[in-house]
């Protein structure tokens, strides 16, 4: 009886192992890349400074501004941000081709001083994470035409570049409301 149970158990373990492994048959790479976590970005950006989160409520005027910048409706009626004495961080999702791109924008003195792609979920266009591109956005202020700096596009990443520019402009617009 004991050997019978042991034998059955062996088959069961093999079967279980098989099922677990079979699960890998259809597993594919989900094109989601987390370049940096929100927490890590905040720690890096604020360093030793004290910071806390707060909420910016969007009145109709601000909503209209946001819609105009994004060229589509901004989903939120308010947005959380993180702030120290003179700096703010805005973590905003903007649609790329199919999926939202999560971006973090650090602003001080109405100027973008840090810009990162936290999560990139698209198949293509991930070059916007590269330093050379982010440097084109860092240092930007608000101007009549949007951003003060010319941000050149990247071949094959046009939609992602546009999304980054819009979010950068939106973060500067929100920052203006705080300071």
């Amino acid at each position, binding site marked *: 009886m004991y050997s019978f149970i042991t*034998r059955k158990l*062996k*088959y069961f373990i*093999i079967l279980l*192992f*098989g099922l677990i*492994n*079979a*699960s*890998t*048959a*259809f*597993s*594919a*790479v*989900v*094109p*989601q*890349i*987390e370049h940096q*976590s929100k*927490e890590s970005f905040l720690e890096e950006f604020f360093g030793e400074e004290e910071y806390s*989160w*707060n*909420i910016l409520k969007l009145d109709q005027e601000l909503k209209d501004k946001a*819609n105009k910048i994004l*060229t*589509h*409706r*901004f*989903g*939120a*009626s*308010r*947005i*959380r941000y993180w702030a120290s004495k003179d700096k703010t961080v805005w*973590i*905003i*999702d903007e*649609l790329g*081709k*199919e*999926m*939202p791109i*999560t971006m973090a924008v650090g602003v001080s003195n109405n100027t973008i001083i840090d810009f990162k792609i936290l*999560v990139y*979920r698209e*198949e*293509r266009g991930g070059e916007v994470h590269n330093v050379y591109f982010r440097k084109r956005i860092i240092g930007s202020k608000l101007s009549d035409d949007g951003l003060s700096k010319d941000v050149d596009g990247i071949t094959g990443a046009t*939609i992602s570049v546009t999304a980054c520019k819009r979010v950068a402009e939106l973060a500067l617009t929100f920052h203006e409301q705080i300071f």
Partner: protein
Amino acid sequence: MNRVVAVPFVLFLLVSLSACASYQGGPGFIPANPEQIAEWQLEGDLEFKDKNTKNKKIYFNYVSIGEDYEFQIKDRPGGETVAVLNGVTDSNLLPEYTATSDSLDSVLPIETLRTSLPLEKMNYWLRALPVSGEAKITQKKNAPVSNIKESGWDIHFQDYMVLGNFLLPDKLKLQKDDSIIKMNIVRGDTGYLSGPCPDDLERPKQSFVNNAREEKVKKYSTVEELVPSDGSAPPPIWIEKTGFCQQLYKLHGKIPDPKIGLFGPKSVMWKLVSPYSVASTVPGPALTLQFYHPWLAKSVYDSSMVHDDFLERIQRTGIGFGAVIYGSMPQVMAIAHKMYNSHSQIEGTLNRDIGPYKKDSKYRATEVHAMLWILASFSDALVKSYKKYEGYLSDEEKEQFYEETKLFGMLMGIPETSFPKNWTEFVAYNDAMRKSSLTTYSYEGKALSDRILIAPNSWLIPAWWVLKNLTIADLPQEVRDDFDLEFGFFRRLTGAFMAGSITIASKIFPKFLSYNPLYHEANARLEGKRANWYHKWQIKFGLNVDGLVN
């Protein structure tokens, strides 16, 4: 160890290691910010307890559009609405209410609900967000929020579920003084509640949506218009964003119950697609026929990740078709936008003459005739596969299926005027296309058809061998010849044997096993329940998502 066990074990280990080698892993799901969901709804049950009320349970649907909310109370999971409480988020006013039945009074008086539930704050709490800057949030590093203390309430988030691109709580406990509220969220939608194109800053006017003049002039296309007998290509009709949204608005108005979706359990579409025998054998011939269209082949070949990650491309296609067929209207609209956004990026110039398409002419994926061919190849493969494995389809069913196919087409942005008149004409169009020079061999088409017939990894070699035999057997002779797909005696024999086995298996096994898991997940949605673990596991296994249409 006994040799009987040892030999298969070692063999199994070797195969498993090869599977591990083909496993590519991934970082998993990384949720988007729930604060930016403009409109959403959650469905579940709520248990309420205070000093006067003992554990009373109700079923609800919480709908949020902007700052407005509506708390619909249901008579049972997924049932009829018996009362509605509505108001504005974070307002000091009690919600307004309407009751359509007094059945609620015996469970929980609506006045109790109105005064005791913090509905005006749930708009944020149900997304694990604080209402104001006063809230105290407990959250471990890189983990979802576990607790919010705000306005005297202590909210524990006990579990989370993936919903669209978001991670939302599915088990909450809210406590204030003597009041305890336990909430179980079963399912939800994260967009497209108020309309099919909610991101549009300007909504189309009624005249734009119902273009009566256009419909009066022309109601359908003839086969001659779609497939000119002189061998030329019909002039391209591009599907622009406005035209695409126009079709979605028309669809949105045609569907009586958004929860049922585009088709529903009484549709012929569900009848045809749901058996595994059909769902698993349709993609092969349908895709190969698509690649028989040089534009489509070029589009996929040049733009798709099919070369880098073939399996994921297949899964994405499966997710798209599955969500359109079985999803609720919000899910259908979400996937329609995703597909349009993706397809609208695909364009280029032909580098040589292919059939009637000239060198240097433009091609785009969002072109009416190309989209119509995708639809035609899918519908044709579907009906043939159903007849082969499942049985008879009456003329009425075929006609109804065609009407449903048109809904599918409208979702892709195809105007109604571009469809053939009826099923018979649609079949005639299909035949004419296959025999015309509009569909022909191209090296891109050949490369893609070869690619889809090769197993993506070692685990799938046996399954792919079966599918390859069945696919080749189901293709029209001219496609087999052009793509050089050998269909000799051995393949005919094995194809016939496999087809017979599939038919028998489909007849023997109950729906629980013989119908695809999305069918079961969609039915669970309609019953206000979650899909069971087995079907959820199948969805994860096959499509690599935690759930699709619940």
